[in-house]
């Protein structure tokens, strides 16, 4: 019998992947000002 993966698993996996992207984006937003200030101040 083929395994019927619950829809919740599919949805949550997509959400988790998207959450990683979101965390990365937030990380960039936090780090960007620091980098700009470092280069901008020189």
């Amino acid at each position, binding site marked *: 019998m083929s395994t019927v*993966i619950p829809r*919740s*698993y*599919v949805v*949550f996996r*997509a959400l*988790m*992947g998207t959450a990683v992207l979101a*965390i*990365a984006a937030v990380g960039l937003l936090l780090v960007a000002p620091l980098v700009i200030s470092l280069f901008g101040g020189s």
Partner: protein
Amino acid sequence: MPFFILLALALLIAYLFALGFVIVAVSTVAFVPLVLLAAVAAYLFAAVVPLVLLTSERWAQPRSANLTTPAEVVAGNVLGAAPRGEMAYHGWDHAWPNYFPYQAQRDFRFVVAVMTRVSRYFLVLPWRWVRALWNKSDGMARWLWWLPIIIGMIPTIAVPLTFFAVMLVLTSALFVGVLWVVMTVMTAIARLFGFVYGSTERAARRRASKELLCPHCYRTTLIPGYRCATCGRTHRLLSPGPLGILTRTCECGSKLPTTATRAAALGLDVVCPYCDQDLGTTAGSRPTTLIPVIGSVGVGKTTFFASAVVGMNESVGSEGTFAPTNPAAHQFYGLVESGAVLPKTAYAGRPEVMTFEASARGELHDIQLVDAAGEFFVTWETTRELTYIDSAACWVFIIDPLTLPDVRDKLDAHGVALGSTVVGTGSAGDAYSSVSDRFKQGRGELKSKSLAIVVSKADLLTQVPEWAELGTSSRAVRELLFEHGADNLLRKLELDFATLAYFAVEAQSRDGLPRHRDPVRVVDWALAQKRLRLSFLGEVPLEPQPVAAEPTTTPVPTINQ
């Protein structure tokens, strides 16, 4: 000749200087941008790849290897070997576990494993290239050509790639770490909600007396088992938990509710979670009262039930409902309706639970009557199978007054003929002890139960003038028993139970039966003990009221309604 040697040396030195200059120049200019580029690439890679790994069809196969399937759950690889509590013996149900944290943990490990593999690959890659270049040739070419190239590779390729690999691991760990915290919080919230939801459901069912009593194994539970409507698999632990908070996904993919209330509303087939017997669709979904009788042979237990069944049927009228719902009840009901002489209850096999559904203009209730042959009530050994009595909140203890010599003397003195009335055999005290002593031995708490002490065959007693109004008060019935040889038994009963009431019933015929001696009053009292709204003789006060013993005769504990 020396000139050529000097020229060659000069050229070699010039070559080395030029090569060194080129390497240093390229490295200095390229090193920082390349390292920065590697860091950014690692960050983006770690940000994008998890989404690809978790959703792309290309990765479906390795993802499947990490699934927390129902088979894995049943095998004990996901939620532990078995659930805690009574269902441990049966193991986990065939259902998909919650995504958080069970599948999520496996998905995280899958992503981390892939990332680790990728970073290891990039860590090793430059050194593999170095080895390949070094082995490309030997002699002067290796030293004069490949070695400088290898040296040039270190700052421009090897270091950025190593940095990429390290950053990949670090950023992946950072992202997964943040998500792990999110997962832990979500799991905690879901578990808390599930706990509250499940507790509320159980409390509501307990308050409403919506219990399941299995007529086959006599076990009771607030959480019935249900069969999946699609595949027929049994779900014994259908409550909010690791296999679903609001809904549960069966192995076949069907959705099931996680509470008995919602499962009953869907009309799912009920299964006894202990013995796997099918119990229809309504079992455990209605307020349920179990009424077991205790009494020795010939005291009138079956006649009491027969009269009660007829009485309940008459009482509900056209607006209410009263009907048998299981084969044992159908058989008994048919026998009672036919007016045939009731046979003596067979002392064979286990007593059957007769389930009747009843309503009086309101919610349907289940009334479960259990009649057992008097031969069961002799010793601990013989009552060992009557475990349904342990589950009942209210016991009905039937005493045949004709077994009391003082009562017989009084009837004889007043010329009361027994006619065809069967006189009970055996001791009422022994019958009671056979049940209560075994129950107490098993650490049962009798104080939490109610006892209806029913004096049967009151139609004979009322022929004695001083007992003509017997049954109008609980006190009078108690006095009759107390003063005619049952005093020791009553002392024991009143010490054992906190709530008890005395009834006198006529069950032989319902023609002209006064309501205060109607067996249905005992049923009403049993229903009231569970605080159920159903009452068959609703307009009649729940007399006789429980009474305390006469202070002059014997001290007894306080008796409550």
